[in-house]
């Protein structure tokens, strides 16, 4: 019961803010809605007892990446944001296509979970403590089974950092 309320509430906020991100004209407001969206996604992670992921979401995404967006939005300082295609009907076509895709996806999910009820065991039954937001477990995984991907990710970040500096610096 409590979980259902939390889930539906959070979902409403997540989707609502996501729509606002995409539709708002003012880019700064858009970034703000993105922040709100990410905060609610973090709460959803807590609901899924992935506390570590929730904290990382806030720390890295909200506290880091989106601040970067905000910086860039302010630096480019748009007066009127560029909008509208030359071909307005393209929007409608895209919309039709995407709605179809969403419907297909929903159908797939429902069919899938209805067809195999055994594996779609309700998550409410699942033991919370075993998976449960265990920082140690995540760390253990990262440094044993996934050590090489972890190192690759760190190299990727290093490369991205160097690349970002090279791109953004006016003259070297």
């Amino acid at each position, binding site marked *: 019961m409590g979980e259902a309320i939390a889930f539906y509430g959070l979902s409403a906020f997540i989707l609502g803010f996501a729509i606002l991100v995409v539709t708002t004209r003012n880019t700064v407001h858009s970034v703000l809605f993105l922040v709100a969206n990410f905060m609610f996604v973090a709460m959803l992670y807590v609901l899924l007892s992935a506390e570590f992921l929730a904290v990382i979401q806030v720390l890295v995404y909200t506290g880091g990446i989106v601040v970067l967006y905000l910086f860039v939005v302010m630096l480019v300082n748009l007066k009127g944001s560029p909008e509208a295609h030359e071909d307005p009907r393209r929007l409608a076509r895209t*919309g039709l296509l995407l709605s179809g895709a969403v419907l297909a996806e929903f159908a797939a999910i429902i069919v899938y979970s209805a067809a195999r009820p055994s594996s779609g065991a309700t*998550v409410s039954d699942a033991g919370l403590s075993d998976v449960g937001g265990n920082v140690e477990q*995540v760390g253990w995984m990262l440094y044993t089974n996934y050590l090489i991907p972890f190192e690759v990710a760190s190299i990727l970040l290093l*490369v*991205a950092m160097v690349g970002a500096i090279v791109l953004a610096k006016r003259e070297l």
Partner: protein
Amino acid sequence: MLEITTAHYMVLSASLFMIGVIGVMVRRNIIIIFMSIELMLNAVNINLAAFSYQLEHVVGQVFAVFVIAVAAAEAAVGLGIILAFYRNKETVNIDEMNVMRW
């Protein structure tokens, strides 16, 4: 309906992903497009976390951490490109980003 299953999370994730896709398709402002991509990555993370919860295994969360790392790298480089582009063309409209060099 009151019982929240993984399917519920998947529906949420799919909807969020679609909103992101719509953003990428419809908006012309490249910063908004980047943010829509972040929304899509978040949708993926929700799925990963939900499956991690269902399967009682943290590997999903580990992958979500990787996704966040990649998102950080993507944002850094992408925004660097936006800045460099803006400096030269004074626009962030994606329709005007149609030349290979300037």
